[in-house]
């Protein structure tokens, strides 16, 4: 009985490592694979693993939003579009002059890694419970409607503009008569 209890109590930690592994694994596939469909599906896998990471760390709100917005909506739309465009895998392989891009992305990744290693010291160490410091959904709402009201509304306006732009672009090729 004790062993079983220990096993289950240790499960969140194991789960966290598994989720991290899969997040990195799928992210690598996004870059390495030459098949657009595999890339899109792997991107979804990455977003999902990140959500799983949030869940295993106890932040359910951010995890749920991550699935709802990124994995459930945006990544599904990516998959949808890639499937409908029917892209062929070999086209991406023969891009001329890929080498500079590799160096550039390597540099960016290196800088990010450096940044992460420098900030790791800032995170409080120890085993104390950090779940008390997590914000609840109510607190998020209160921040959005008080302190961060203007950026929140501005983001809404931006999305609205993007939707209008998409409609204009999508209907732009039609004549004026057809539009009505």
């Amino acid at each position, binding site marked *: 009985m004790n062993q079983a209890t220990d096993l289950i109590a240790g499960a969140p930690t194991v789960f966290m490592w598994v989720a991290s592994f899969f997040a990195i694994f799928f992210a690598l596939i996004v870059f390495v694979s030459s098949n657009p469909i595999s890339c899109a599906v792997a991107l979804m896998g990455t977003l999902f693993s990140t959500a799983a990471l949030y869940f295993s760390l106890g932040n*359910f709100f951010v995890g749920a939003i991550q699935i709802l917005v990124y994995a459930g909506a945006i990544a599904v739309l990516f998959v949808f579009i890639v499937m409908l465009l029917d892209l062929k895998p070999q086209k991406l392989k023969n891009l001329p002059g890929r080498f500079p891009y590799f160096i550039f992305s390597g540099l960016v990744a290196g800088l990010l890694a450096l940044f992460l290693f420098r900030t790791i010291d800032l995170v409080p160490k120890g085993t104390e419970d950090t779940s008390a410091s997590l914000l*609840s959904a109510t607190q998020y709402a209160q921040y959005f409607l008080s302190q961060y009201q203007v950026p929140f509304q501005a983001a809404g306006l931006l999305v609205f503009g993007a939707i209008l732009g998409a409609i204009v672009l999508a209907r732009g090729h039609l004549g004026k008569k057809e539009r009505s």
Partner: protein
Amino acid sequence: MSAELWSAIVAIALGVAVLTGVPLMVIVERRGSAWMQRRSGPNRVGPWGLMQPMADAIKFVFKEENVPAKAHKILFLLAPALAVIPPLISFTVIPLAGSINLEGVEFPVQVANMSVGLLFLLAINSMHVFSVLTAGWASNNKFSLMGALRASSQMISYEIAIGICIVALVITYGTLDLREIVKLQEAGSSLPAWGMFMQPLSFFILWVCAFAETNRLPFDLPEGESELVAGYHTEYSGMKFALFFMGEYAAMFVASAFLTTLFLGGYNVPFLSEETIRNFFIAKEMTLTMASAATCALQVVSFAVKVLFFMWFYVWIRWTLPRFRYDQLMHLGWKVLLPLGVLNIFITMIVSYLRSV
């Protein structure tokens, strides 16, 4: 007993219950449809045909598993799994009964008591589209692709109406915690304080959307057999097809449990609060643990009855109404349910403002 161990026990019990419920629901649907159409239905295997699901399962296992030559193999194999897993995950946040008192600690009968259960349920529900889309595309078949396109546009359209209704509900309840929502519906003197009386319009819209989301008649255009053979699962055979079938029924169970939790008071027994029932059992000279366990048993039965009502309603509607035409379906989703949902938000806002003043 640790909270984690308790969660694991509830999870296993729940998984067994749902996976046994699915074949039972299949026999209920087949016998029920036969009863409605005045024919016999499957009545040969076992007493009253009750062993028919077993026979079906054996048949599915022994059938040939066929993968089309030009299919995308990995996605083709992934899609059936994705159809079953999300409904099973969604069940973890649904409260099944009050709490059991073990050694002085109250353990809620729920796998994961999440503070954002409602959001989690919506998030996992949105994954269903991915399975359908993947299945349709990976099969490399025109009918499958058409079915997948229909299904995904239908599900995405109706998800918007669901989201709008959830906003109105959150205004009324003021929380995203499903256990809290059930507790708010607990007491009531003349009427039970159920969500269906607080939010009748939301109840109606969500109920309609539950049919569209699970691709059941009258919204089963993705699988319309007279037009698309069988839609997105045309190329699937054997156990892979059975997984889609199980996924559909599990999704129906989730939708029913969702409606029950939000509108029919969840596990609550009408007119009786958890405390009343527990005190009744304690007065019968039970220990606290036994009394709480008996209360929970009663509440699980109450929950199951409500869920089964919605499940039966699915069957009832399926054999009563004909299928929509595609433009009618889109018209209903975008031009009827969505404006109604927005109107409902306005009414809810005004009422909750007047109540708070």
